[in-house]
Structures are given as C-alpha cells and as structure tokens.
C-alpha cells in the first residue's frame, strides 16, 4: 500500500505545525535561530490540512488504473474490444470454420449453437465471416487512425508550437477540411483513388486528421503556456527539449482519448463505405459488405444483416465508452 507512509507524514505535519503556529518561531523577522528551529521542525512540510489533502491526491493518483478497473462497464468494453482485436489478428482462434466454406445443406439457417450468427444463402457460417471481416475492417480503421494521428500530430504541433503565420495557414487549411463532411470527403477520395481497403483507409484518415490537428494544437498551446515550460526555458532548455520532454508527454492525454474515439468513428465510416459498395470486392467481406449483402434476405433471414450490424454497433459503443471513461479518469 503506497498510502501508508503518506499518512505517517501527515501526522508528523500535524505535530510540526504547532511549532510553526507559534508566532515567534514563525515570524520571518525573528532571529535566525528561531527560523532554523522552525525549519527543522517542519522538515519541508506545511500545514497539516494540506498534508491530508496530499494524501488524498496521492491515493487518487495511485489508483487511476484501479478506478478504471472498478468500472464494470469499462472492463466489459475493454474485454470486448480486446476480443475483436484478437479475432482480427488471428480469427481462427475463435472459429474453426473457414469464412468461404459453403455448405449447401445448411443454407439460411438461423442462429444456433452450431452457427452463432446463423448461415447465409450459400450456407457459409456468418460468425466466421464476421470475425474474418473484422480483420479487414479493423486493419483499415487502425491504419486510418494511425495515419490521422501522425498527420494530425504533425500539423497540430507545428501550428501550436510555432504560432504566427504557420499556425494561421495550417489552421485555415484545417477549417476548410472541416467544412467538408467526413463521409463526403472520404467518398471524394475513393472516387479519385478507386475502391478497396487502402483507399478507404486513406480516405477516412484524411477525414479525421483535421480534428486531430485541432485537438493537438489546442493541447500544445495549453501546455506551452504552462509555467513549467517557461521554467524549463529559463533553466536553459532548448525548444526541442521542451517539445520532447514537456509538451508532447503532457499533450498526450486528450489526443489519446480522441484517438480511441476516432477509432470507433473510423470503424463506422469504413463499414458505411463498404455498405455503400466501395470496399474490397467479394468474396472478401468487410462488415459493411456483409450487411449490404444480407439485406436482400431481410424478410426471411433478418439475422444476416442485423447481427453483423449489431456487432459493429457494439464495437463502436465499446470504443466510445472506453474513450469516455479515460476522459473522466483523466479529469
């Protein structure tokens, strides 16, 4: 338990403050001996009330991860996202069936223990297809967020750190990008680059990067104006050192939250794009493509479209929930 010694300090503070509270000892104009005795009595600590507050703060800081772990919603969401990520990397871990394995005898079967998500018109196992679909979707979404974070960080840091005309120019560009809705921007880029996974990833990245740039810039500006940055500068640190040691590490929090949030947004966007038919051509099937194909059987076999749709919704909801929990804990 890290808090024990802190409480010990707090009680010591309490004892020492009575020394400090004595007006003669505490008066700065009193003779040096009295000053030194007060100093010795204090051992560098202040009022006991403050000491207790420190103990509380320490308790809070030490258990930030603990506070997250105590939220059942967060744990569930994190577990689900972990499951989806793992299944995206190694889908065979969770399903023995190949996604393309047809079975003419088992066409359009409803969900059962044998086929969790049912089967499609060719008798393919939908659960397997969804899991294998996550490989494509998660990869594209992850790639998009990665590109967006790198580009957004670069723009935001440049703008926030240098200010002046660099800032004005970059932020005007960002403003213009934000005036075009993300989905439309992505569709424009898909028009130019053609269909498929990589164009979609790039398209989504271009769509969400401006938001990153904005947030990063705001954070860099916030941290830059902190007194400890000026303290580092007057202590002789170069701008490079200030950027690497102070600004970036302290800006990371909100940017990280936004990255998680935008991962969810990227999943939604990529599913929407592939639902509209801009994704990888069949038989490879992203989540959106699966749902789009399933809607032809909506009357007779609604699970074909609705279960993968629900799956996408759950992934996005989990990511949003994680982002929100992180934000709340950071505050």
């Amino acid at each position, binding site marked *: 338990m890290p808090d024990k010694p802190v409480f010990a300090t707090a009680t010591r503070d309490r004892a020492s403050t009575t020394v400090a509270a004595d007006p003669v000892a505490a008066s700065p104009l009193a003779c040096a001996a009295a000053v030194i005795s007060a100093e010795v009595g204090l051992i560098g600590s202040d009022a006991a009330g403050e000491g207790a507050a420190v103990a509380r703060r320490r308790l809070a800081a030490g258990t930030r991860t603990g506070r997250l772990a105590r939220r059942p919603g967060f744990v569930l969401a994190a577990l689900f996202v972990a499951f989806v990520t793992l299944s995206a990397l190694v889908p065979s871990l969770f399903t023995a069936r190949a996604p393309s394995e047809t079975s003419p005898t088992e066409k359009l079967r409803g969900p059962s223990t044998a086929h969790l998500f049912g089967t499609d018109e060719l008798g393919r196992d939908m659960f397997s297809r969804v899991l294998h679909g996550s490989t494509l979707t998660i990869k594209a979404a992850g790639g998009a967020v990665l590109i967006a974070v790198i580009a957004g960080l670069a723009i935001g840091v440049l703008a926030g750190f240098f200010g002046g005309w660099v800032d004005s120019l970059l932020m*005007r560009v960002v403003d213009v990008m934000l*005036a075009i*809705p993300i*989905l439309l921007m992505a569709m424009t880029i898909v028009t130019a680059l053609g269909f498929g996974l990589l164009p979609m990833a790039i398209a989504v990245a271009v769509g969400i990067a401006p938001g990153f740039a904005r947030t990063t810039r705001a954070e860099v500006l916030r941290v830059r104006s902190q007194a400890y940055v000026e303290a580092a500068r007057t202590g002789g640190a170069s701008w490079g050192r200030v950027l690497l040691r102070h600004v970036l590490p302290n800006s990371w929090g909100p940017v990280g939250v936004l990255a998680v949030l935008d991962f969810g947004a990227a999943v939604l966007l990529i599913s929407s794009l592939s639902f509209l038919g801009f994704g990888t051509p069949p038989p490879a099937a992203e989540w959106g493509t699966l749902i789009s194909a399933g809607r032809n059987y909506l009357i007779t076999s609604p699970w074909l479209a609705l279960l993968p*749709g629900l799956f996408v919704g759950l992934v996005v909801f989990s990511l949003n929930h994680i982002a929100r929990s992180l934000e709340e804990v950071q505050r």
Partner: protein
Amino acid sequence: MTRYLAGRFAQALLVLWAAYTVVFVILHVLPSDPITLQLSAGGADISQLTPAALHDLKDRYGLNNPVLVQYVHSLWHALHGDFGMSLTQNVTVGSLIADKLPSTLELTAVALPLMLGGGVGLAYLAVFVRWRPARTVLARLPAVGVSLPQFFVGLLLIQVFSFSLTWLPATGSDGWRSLVLPAVTMSLIGAAMLAQLLTRGFDDTWREPYIVTAQAKGLSRRTVQRRHVLRNACLPALTLLGIMLGYTVTNSIVVEAVFSRNGLGQLTQQAVLGQDVPVVQAIVLITAAGFVLVNLLVDLLYSLLDPRVASAAGAG
C-alpha cells in the same frame, strides 16, 4: 456590426473557394490518372482506342489543357452555376441535382424537427426525472444512439415496422408514410448527439456560480432552469445543430441507400460508384456551401443569444 457581417461573409466565400480547390486537387491531381478514370467511367475502353481517338476524347472533356487551365475553367463555370456534363448520364450535372434535391430536402424537413424534439426532450427528461434507474437509462441512451451505424438502425426499423408489423412501407418515395422510417433513421444520430451535448451543458451550467446567486434569490428549480440554465446551455447545441443541418447531404447518403429513396444521397453513391467526377465535385461544393451558409447563420444567431459574442463582434 455591418463590418463584422461583411467580414464573416467574405470569410465564408473564402472557405467555399478553398473547399472547391481542395476537391479539385483531390480529383485531378492525385496520382490516380483522372483521364483514364473519367474515360473508363464514360463507358469507353481505353485499350481499344487509337491514340488519335483518345486525343479527340480528351479534347472533348478539355483534358488536354494544363491542370491549372482546367481548374480556372471549371471554377469559372462553377461560379456561373454550370458544373458541366455528367459522365455516366447524358445530362448536365445541374439538372441532375435539381432533379434529386427536392426529395432530400423533404426528408431533411421531416428529420430535423424529429431530431430537435428527440434531443431536447431526452435532455430535459434526464434533468427532471428523479427516479434513479430511469435516470441512468436516460443518461446512457444517447451514447448508444451515437454508436449505432445508420444502416443498422434503418434495416432494424424496416424489419420491425415494415416486415413484422407491416405498418409502414420499407422503400419508395411517395406520401408521408414512406417518409417516416427514413426520417427517424436520419434524425437518430443527431438527436443522440444533441441530447448528449445538452445533458452535459445542463450539468455544467447548474454548477456555475451564477446559479448559486439565482438560487439564493429564492427561485425555484424550475425557474432557475428556465431563466438561467437553458439559454446558457443551449449555445453549444446551436453549433451542433448547424453542423447537422450542414451535413444534410451526407446524412442522406446511407439513409437513401437503405430505403432506396431517389435523392441527392443516392445520386452521390451512384456518382462515386461510377466515378463520375463532375457530379461528385458539384455535390461536394453544394454541401460545403450549405455547411458554410448554415454556420454563418449560426454565428449570427449566436451573437443574438450571447451578448458577449455580440460585443466582441462589435469591437472587432
């Protein structure tokens, strides 16, 4: 104030021009070959064309000119409301859009009040419902709404209300009955976001020191909410409303695809599928114009509702 207005208007035009330029750059300068793109989209197979025929074809679309000339040319025409010919359909882009726009506007006109009502209603319920379980559910609901993909919501509504209950038609664009499901689908995300923003705004505003002043006067909770909280909490929601309204075309893309409605969204989808560059370009421009215009209005409304903005605008 007039100077402020003029300034904002000039700024809006500048953003519009920049947006047009960005889209032009994406569609014409990116590594993919716009010529092949446009010609193959036009139905021609390049490998079967003689070089002379190819040259002729390029000439027809002005593609032999330097990119800069093409840019100035298309910008000049766009300024006059001429977006050129569609590559996939033998009509002007202008007439295509004029044909599809009413259907989408109709949809938006129904969806917007739904979104407002849903969002504000939910936020108000979350403030005033005292029963804890209901409060928790109300607080969580918007987060769910924001996460659900639009196509999933649309398909679910079709499955339940068209196929199972057979209350409303699943597709088509005739009569108000066919508008209900698409409008609900379209309003859902906006309503959820609005509710989230407003709930948070209410919570934050209730913690403001001037609320203590108001309570110390002896005003009731209801009066404090109505006279002091509402307006201050509404300001951020106004911005969101502007964005949602500006995103009308984008919102309609998936909805019109799900409900097979013949509107601007469907036109966009088909244009992208057919890589019909002039149509895509025009739609993006129209959307950006809508976005910029609505945000201009929101800014003005802001300065009416928030005196601090107004006085800053007056000074600037």
